[in-house]
């Protein structure tokens, strides 16, 4: 094997090399932060949350009745759910969609209750109305569904005309599927001709 000759360096040359290495090392440490700083970037992540309001209902309520001479009563419910991110909450109102407060089947009608939300009344044969437990003068309830039962003492009100809706609920904060149960009752005797009687109501939800 051939021997490799390592040249001998003078003392001054070694001093020069040590000084160079030192300066180079110092330079690395000085340069590194500058290089690291140059690699740093700030990004602002931004999201704009828009205001929304939602309304969900059953869509329809069936109040089928098989009347008797003295009258029967059927009670059904609609679940009205509102969601909103308005921090002032929402107001939910109910009113007639059309000009008539009657339930209509061709030329035949079922009159609305004579009660109001402030002063509801028990139904009499051949009338219909709504109620919301704990609202206005309706009392705490609880109201339950019924089918062809004897006409009871649960109070109902006429669905108000389009121009003067009733306020069913007002809240003061955001809402997620906040539900209100709206009950509808129909009392019918054999004086009501057979037919499919209908009425269209409008629920309105707006932010406060």
């Amino acid at each position, binding site marked *: 094997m051939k021997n490799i000759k390592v040249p001998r360096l003078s003392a001054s040359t070694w001093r020069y090399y040590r000084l160079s290495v030192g300066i180079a090392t110092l330079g690395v440490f000085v340069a590194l932060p500058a290089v690291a700083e140059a690699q740093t970037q700030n990004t602002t992540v931004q999201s704009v949350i*828009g*205001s*929304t*309001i*939602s*309304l*969900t*209902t*059953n*869509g*329809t*309520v*069936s*109040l*089928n009745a098989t009347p008797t001479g003295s009258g029967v009563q059927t009670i*059904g419910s*609609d679940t009205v759910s509102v*969601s*909103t*991110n*308005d*921090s*002032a909450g929402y*107001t939910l*109102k109910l009113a007639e*969609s059309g000009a008539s407060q009657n*339930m209509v089947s061709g030329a035949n009608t079922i009159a609305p209750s004579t009660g109001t939300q402030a002063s509801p009344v028990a139904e009499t044969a051949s009338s219909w109305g709504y109620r919301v437990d704990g609202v206005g003068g309706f009392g705490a309830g609880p109201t339950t569904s019924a089918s062809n039962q004897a006409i009871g003492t649960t109070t109902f009100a006429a669905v108000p005309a389009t*121009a003067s809706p009733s*306020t069913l609920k*007002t809240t*003061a904060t955001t809402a997620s599927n906040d539900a209100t149960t709206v009950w*509808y009752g*129909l009392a019918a005797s054999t004086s009501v001709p057979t037919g*499919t*009687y*209908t*009425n*269209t*109501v*409008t*629920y*309105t*939800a*707006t*932010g*406060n």
Partner: protein
Amino acid sequence: MRVFPRVRPVALLGAALAAAVAVSVGSVHASSIPPDNTAITISPASSAPSLKPGGSQLYNISVLNNGNTSYNARLYSEPYNVVGINYDPSFSQLPGTVNAASWVKLSKQTIFVPAHETVVVPYTLAIPANTTPGGYYAVIFVETKPPKVSNVQAQNRVGDILYITAQGPVRTGGKIIGTPLPHITSATNLELSLEVSDTGSLHYLTKANISVINLFGKDVFTGSFERYVLPQTVRKISTSWKTPSLGIFKVSRQAIVAGHLQSLPDKWVVVIHPWVIVLAVIILALIFSLLILGRRTKR
């Protein structure tokens, strides 16, 4: 002797997890919207456009059908105002006022919204050139039709309230108004409120703060509320404070009214719940009885 098989802990954990998944899946089904239900969402729920008289601007309203049934929806605008200090919304035009709803020109009056889809409807807001600077209010309604014929059929209607500013020199002003607070209360929930008025011709967004501190200066309740206040109206802002059983508290109320911070004088409220009074009476009665008994014994 009967031998029961050893159940491995891993099998027990797996069974528990399976049960939890089954319950959660059942819960998911229970919370989904039934097929006949009508569900409508709009965005925004309110907006505050500001234009010069004679100016116009294009905006959008998004209608989302988050139900399982497609439907036709009707769009239209109506006036908006409020009644009373509780701001009950009203959609009829006040006598002698400008009908700002007529400034809204919708690009479509009826739309078809498929289930689980969003329809964006552009509209133009155009303020007539001769409009007096100030605040004007309208609401854009989106209304669904009932899904099918039944005894009671429901139309769902949601509104985007427009707080419109007709730019120009306007009169602003208002004040914060205190509402009564009891000196002593036994209520478990105490209503804390204030009222703000707008005496100018333009609406403003007030930020109200209601806070309660105890005798040691510790915050026991803080509420912050942002509300629009319409011109020539007074709006009540209220919240409910669940009171501790016993204590003396200082209630502070302030609001930014037409850009200026106004504060009400602080009020001190003493809270004593009924059971505390009953307990105190019992303790006093016991002490009194012991004193009487002690005197009789000495004799």
